[in-house]
């Protein structure tokens, strides 16, 4: 069975969870840039950098949704193209112990983010991760370029 994974170094995981712990009212988000390992048994996102947005790079930041400015996302897309990186979109649900994708997330990831990156940043794999206020209670998935649908991530590793 093909296994799908996102792997973080401890320092990146620490950076991410510390940032998410700063805000308890509204959702927060970040982008992880990753390299890939892929063969017939594994698809592994290896996170090499965490991009934390500045406050002004949020277009919207409420208890139920966030969105980033086009400039912020474009900068990340350009890095993906230039440095041959892949994307992991991460956000949190601070009001919930367990992170699970909301219907809003489902629609955005399936209808907008997945197809958009596939079309405009070709060859870039894209994963999504949502964390609860306990960062180890999370959910994750990726946009499969083959099947053109969202598929679950099996394992998140921190080392």
């Amino acid at each position, binding site marked *: 069975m093909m296994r799908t994974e996102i792997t973080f170094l401890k320092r990146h995981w620490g950076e991410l969870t510390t940032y998410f712990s700063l805000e308890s009212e509204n959702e927060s988000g970040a982008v992880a840039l990753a390299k890939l390992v892929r063969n017939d048994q594994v698809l592994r996102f290896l996170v090499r950098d965490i991009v934390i947005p500045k406050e002004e790079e949020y277009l919207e930041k409420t208890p139920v949704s966030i969105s980033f400015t086009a400039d912020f996302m474009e900068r990340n897309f350009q890095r993906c193209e230039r440095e041959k990186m892949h994307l992991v979109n991460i956000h949190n649900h601070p009001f919930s112990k367990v992170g699970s994708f909301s219907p809003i997330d489902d629609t955005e990831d399936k209808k907008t983010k997945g197809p958009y990156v596939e079309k405009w940043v070709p060859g870039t794999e894209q994963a999504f991760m949502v964390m609860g206020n306990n960062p180890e209670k999370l959910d994750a998935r990726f946009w499969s370029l083959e099947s053109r649908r969202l598929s679950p991530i099996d*394992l998140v590793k921190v080392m």
Partner: protein
Amino acid sequence: MKLISPISSQLKAVFDEHIYNRTILALGKEAQAIYSNLRAGVTSCGGLACIVIELLSRLGLTDILLCEFDHVEKSNLNRLLGAHFYDGILKTPKALVAARNAFSINPNINLEIVQGDFLEKKNQEKFKSVDILFECSDSPALSFAADRLCLACGIPHFNLKSGAVVENGKLKSVGGQVILIRPDRGFCLQCGNFFDIKEARAEFMDPEEAKRQREMGYVKGETVPQPAVYALNMMVASWAVWMMMLYVLDQDLDFDGISVDALSFQSRVWSEERREGCDVCGKDGALFRGDEVQLLTRESYNSLHFPENLDRSSYKKEGTENKGDTKPTEEQPGCVLTKKI
């Protein structure tokens, strides 16, 4: 290492609670679930590796990838777990012996055997999918290759060695060591200068060139039989698997290696110096670069920058933050750095 299973993960741990009852009593059901889901790689099926494979099978791992090209000789029977007398006569492949033993413990184990040389690209590529790797061979080239592969692909790995030094017919030193190499710890086998890089280079050369280098004295002589003791291998393999068992449960292993001096019945943990700028484990090196890293293989050896000599002064040292001693030097009793094996 923290292993987090996302809510919608399709990876579900299935294990027989009766079989693993005593492990569960010791470490808990969650731990058993983690072990059952691990995919482990073992780079050989020799004296150390066959014990590691046995331990992993009994621990409940259901997914193991093996690579070995060699077959059983009579001289292996003193230490090859699961090998029968007739395997030495029939020259049974070592991988088959390891597999036969693992299947006798757990018939449902998913054991993938690569009957070949780990230094060949197509074989090494398969190991990218493992969660954890045990490098148990006595080959410096293989140790360097596994090190590079694992750091590039985000795979923690254990390097196991055991050996003895006999001088004038007298046992001078006997022991073993396990090195745990984790991404982002600031050292690897290359910049740590653990093994003889000239010996490793010789393994990549064509036989004629290797012979010429040996005649000129650039590398040591032909491989000669080395002293090897089953009980010692048992000890080293057990340490390695125990370290792995704690490491995957996110226990803080605040050291990089353990060395066992079997003559004085002493073991000690040690930490390696942290460095920057290494082209394997440095942040601008192969670390976490995944598929874009060229693996150290027979095919790539000529085009890959693989240093002739290691000048450790080119690596900037960082402060050692962790507890434990520094790694043993060659002069210390029980030291079994590969050079001495």
